[in-house]
Structures are given as structure tokens and as C-alpha cells.
């Protein structure tokens, strides 16, 4: 069993639980691969379905520990909380995009923008939480993540003071609540 770098895998003691965990991650990888085969091919003849089943079985058999290195029941909760997070993120992206649109059409743009780099520290531990926060910051216009290391230190390039003030407030809270970590 692969031990993930974020320290989720703790009880490697029993071989049976290890077997079940690998089996479930294999099953989920297989289902994901087969669904994407169905969407991408779009034909439902029996021969093509068999070919898709065989190839996604091979992929899932060899690479089951890539997508979900240590599967636990917490992943289901994380998935649902992530789905709840998505509409807020899209609304935030749209709101901030209009700000950037106004900024780039403004005739005296160089007086409005004020690029600078801010640094803040967060207590996020796991890799996926840090990646989600970094990608969310980059997707929200006005701010780009420059560096994000595994200690949770973020350097963010912001284009004006207004979009820099929003960090690291409510977005960090929401991401930390998704992955069940303290801020």
C-alpha cells in the first residue's frame, strides 16, 4: 500500500483493510475510466463496450494508486463539500472578471493598477488543499499565485489594492473547511 505524502494513511496494520482500500480505489478508478470512455466514444455497440471495459480494467489495475492514494470514507464527504464550494467559486470568478474587464478598458489604466506581491502563511497541511487554494487564487482574477510550498506559505501577485485585500480571508476558510483542517 502506498503511503501518501499528506499523512492520511495511518493504520496500515491489517492486511485485510489494506486489501479493501486498494480494491475500492481500483473500483472507483475503473468506474471513472469507463464513464469517460462512454462519453468520449458515444457508441453503444457490444464490441466497443467490451473493448472499453478491458482497457479501463487494465488502466485501473496498474494505476489504481495514482488518483486516490489512500481511500477512506472521508473522501465522499470531501467530494460533496467540494461540489458545494464550486458555485461560490464560479460566482466569485464572474464578479472579479467584470472588475478586471473594467480595468483593462479604462483609459487611464496605469493610475488604477498597482502591482505588488503579498505573502501570507496558512496552516494547510495536505497537498490537495494547498493545490486547491492555489488554483482558486489564480482563477480569481486580480491575483496570481507565484509560489506555494508545502509549508503553506503563499506568495501572491496582485494587480491592485482592492483585489489584494480579499486575501487570505474567506477563501482560505472555505478551503480549510472542505478538507477538514484548521485555519
Amino acid at each position: 500500500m502506498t503511503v501518501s505524502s499528506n499523512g492520511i494513511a495511518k493504520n496500515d496494520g491489517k492486511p485485510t483493510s489494506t486489501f479493501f482500500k486498494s480494491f475500492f480505489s481500483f473500483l472507483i478508478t475503473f468506474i471513472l475510466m469507463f464513464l469517460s470512455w462512454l462519453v468520449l466514444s458515444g457508441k453503444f455497440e457490444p464490441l466497443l463496450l467490451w473493448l472499453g471495459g478491458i482497457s479501463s480494467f487494465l488502466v485501473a489495475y496498474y494505476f489504481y494508486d495514482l488518483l486516490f492514494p489512500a481511500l477512506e470514507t472521508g473522501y465522499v464527504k470531501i467530494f460533496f463539500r467540494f461540489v458545494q464550494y464550486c458555485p461560490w467559486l464560479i460566482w466569485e470568478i464572474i464578479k472579479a472578471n467584470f472588475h478586471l474587464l473594467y480595468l483593462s478598458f479604462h483609459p487611464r489604466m496605469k493610475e488604477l493598477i498597482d502591482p505588488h506581491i503579498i505573502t501570507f502563511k496558512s496552516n494547510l497541511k495536505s497537498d490537495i488543499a494547498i493545490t486547491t487554494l492555489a488554483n482558486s487564487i489564480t482563477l480569481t482574477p486580480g491575483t496570481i499565485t507565484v509560489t506555494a510550498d508545502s509549508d503553506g506559505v503563499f506568495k501572491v501577485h496582485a494587480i491592485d489594492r482592492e483585489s489584494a485585500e480579499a486575501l487570505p480571508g474567506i477563501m482560505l476558510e472555505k478551503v480549510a473547511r472542505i478538507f477538514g483542517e484548521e485555519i
Partner: protein
Amino acid sequence: MDILVILLLLIGLLFFLGGAVGIIRMPDFYSRLHPAGKLDTLGILAMVMGLALYNLHHFSLESLLLSIKMFLIVFFVFLASPTATHSIVDAGMRAGLRHWTKKKRKV
């Protein structure tokens, strides 16, 4: 229905126009990344929403699968665009580019 499609396509075109103008007008490499990476992402979202809606006029299983495939493009772009932006910024940082700031003439 058609009006909604036209509206969505025009909104996407507006975002693309903002991105293109922003790329030309911004003073600095770092600040050029802001319109390039993100106005284009939202433009793709709006235009693909319009095109997928137009595709669903004659509703069947195939057109539904095609619309799902189009949204697969959007999903991939939403994953890939921050990564590409971050990679370009990282290359700029390592090459030692300074970022543009307002000139404060205190002399």
C-alpha cells in the same frame, strides 16, 4: 432560446476582447498574465455554454453526449489554465524579472 445563445456568445466575445486589449495595454509581463489567463477562461465558459445550448435544439442521446463533451473541454481548461499561468509566472520569477510598480518620484 436563440436569443440566449446569441447573448452568451456575445458575452464570451466581450471577455475575449477584454483579454486581447488587456494583453496589449498592460505595462508589465506579470500584469499581462492577469487578462490573458483568466478573461479567456471565462470567455471559453460563456461561449461553450452558448454552443452547447444551441446543440441541444434537436434533443437526442448523441447531442446530449456532445454537449457533455463540450463541458469536458471547459472542465479541462479550468484545471489547466491556472497551471499554465503558474508555470509561466514561475519561469519569470526564476529568470529574475522584476515587476512593474508605480513610479514614485520623491526626488
